[in-house]
């Protein structure tokens, strides 16, 4: 069996997640020992036909993007959503909170009517095509990405945490952000970042999206204990989790 043929595709995003892959530096050489990159706009010019693994970054915002994604899905054995924009819409979904025309006016001002700026509701990748595996984060954690690739290459089911950031935060013995009277999204957010933000003096922004079954009712009730309101919490949650059904209390 040859090396798996892997392609990386980008949609609406900052391309920071695939930049993380490029940031593997020397390990990039190890990575291409394991897999054969056949299409990757940010790093090479070749195009491929049939592929084993499609890595898709970004949100889906236009009809032509949906079509392109469906074609990628048909070409690929395995489709992997890479980063928050792809796994759950991420910051792009903030746009869905206001009427589209208003969003376009806010962002593009006088140019809002230009044809190349027309786009629709923001979707995560799994809202358009079936997704086999999600790699979370804004941006992704490159150590986690590398591990998941190795586990796949070794024929194992990759471990992806379904527990909150609190687990990693406790293991790093951080002082809980709630002890500083801050709203931290750690208790409802999927771990895997090794509690990066709380370990560096910030609350968790929830970039990785919620765990499978976040207890949002608890989050709403707990606000009162810390002298906060539901609005305070919703304001934090909406940055990365707008349109995420599981965060509606």
């Amino acid at each position, binding site marked *: 069996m040859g090396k798996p043929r892997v392609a990386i595709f980008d949609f609406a995003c900052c391309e920071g997640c695939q930049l993380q892959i490029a940031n593997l530096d020397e*390990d990039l050489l*190890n*990575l291409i*020992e*394991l897999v054969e990159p056949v299409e990757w706009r940010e790093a090479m010019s070749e195009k491929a036909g049939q592929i084993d693994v499609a890595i898709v970054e970004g949100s889906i915002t236009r009809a032509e993007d949906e079509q392109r994604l469906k074609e990628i899905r048909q070409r690929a054995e395995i489709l992997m959503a890479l980063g928050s924009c792809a796994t759950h819409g991420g910051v792009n979904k903030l746009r869905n909170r206001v009427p589209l025309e208003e969003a376009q006016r806010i962002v593009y001002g006088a140019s809002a009517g230009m044809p190349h700026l027309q786009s629709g509701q923001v979707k995560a990748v799994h809202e358009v095509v079936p997704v086999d595996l999600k790699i979370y984060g804004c941006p992704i954690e490159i150590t986690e990405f*590398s*591990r998941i690739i*190795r*586990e796949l*290459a*070794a024929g*194992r089911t990759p*471990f992806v945490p*379904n*527990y*909150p950031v*609190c*687990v990693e935060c*406790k*293991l790093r*013995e*951080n*002082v*809980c952000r*709630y*002890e500083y009277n801050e709203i931290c999204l*750690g*208790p*409802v957010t999927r771990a895997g970042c090794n509690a990066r933000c709380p370990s560096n003096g910030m609350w968790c922004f929830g970039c990785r999206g919620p*765990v*499978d*079954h*976040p*207890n949002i*009712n*608890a*989050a709403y*009730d*707990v606000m009162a*204990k810390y002298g906060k309101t539901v609005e305070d919490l919703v304001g934090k949650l909406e940055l990365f989790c707008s349109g995420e059904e599981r965060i509606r209390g």
Partner: protein
Amino acid sequence: MSVYKLNMEQLRNWVGRLIAERPVYGVRQKDERFVFGRLKKPEELRLDYDVTILPPKKYILPTRENLLAYQPGEHYESLWADEPFVLLGVHPYDFVAIRQLDLLFEREKPDEHYLRRRRAATIIVADVERASDNVFAGCVGTAVVKDAFDGLLTRVEDGYLLEVRGEKGEWLASLLESPSPANAAELSRRNDVWENNRRRLRKHELKVPPEQLGDLLRRSVDHPLWEEKARLCYSCGSCNLVCPTCYCFDVRDESDWSLDKGVRYRVWDGCLLEDFAMVAGGHNFRPTRAARYRHRYYRKGLYVPEMIGELACVGCGRCITACTAGIANPVEVYNRLQEEPHEDDAAE
């Protein structure tokens, strides 16, 4: 048994000599809290701490511990860590917890990884100087320990008393500079500290006698409290992770880039986490928050006591502090089960 009197300078010099001899893990300040960490110099040591974020068991059962190195197919090799080290300033309740882990890891199939680290440890207990916000060690008999330690430090007016026991204790004493034995007045002062700690380390008052807790729990399987509390449970496992008597772990493999070799390691796990009871085939035998929430109180009050004959909660109060939702107070849970007997249970 020997008890020595150390003034503050003697203490500092002695800790300095310990650090020169072996890795010493003692209590240091971290932001507004305290943690056990490697001491580089005696001045870092804070014996006046209230409670650490994680318990000192992390040096005997590390948060992540490599168990073996493997090559796919046949070959593997166990990985051991048995370099001698010193744990300095362990509060009595945390020491009781380590003694419980000793029993649990020794029974049935002994866990050689744990036991080797444990044998490598020289443990110096320190009597509590400052009570933490939620400590209730006084209610569960863990405010004071009288044996099984290697060293015991107790604050007296102008210094510390150091009691040493056994072979490791002799080594500790051998590093003292011109040791002077404690006098009768100082020993009596130490008794006062113990009496006082038994009384004051009770920020919560457990009304159920520990020996009756098992029966109370057997009657409380369907108590509405489990649902009521679990409604607010994030399933974040914070109560598990800060607990000095929790010892469950998950085992995972990680291979290097060549896929030709890798390590099998274990990491701390927690029974409150959603996937804790997920087994091969995708079945989760404790799928609800209430079932997981209840399980923890049964472990501490019934299941582990059945194995080792001791209440598996040492009253450190860490879970109470760590729970963002404010539902993890074992004293409140056990008291309520007693005060509000469940009707169906009572009718049985």
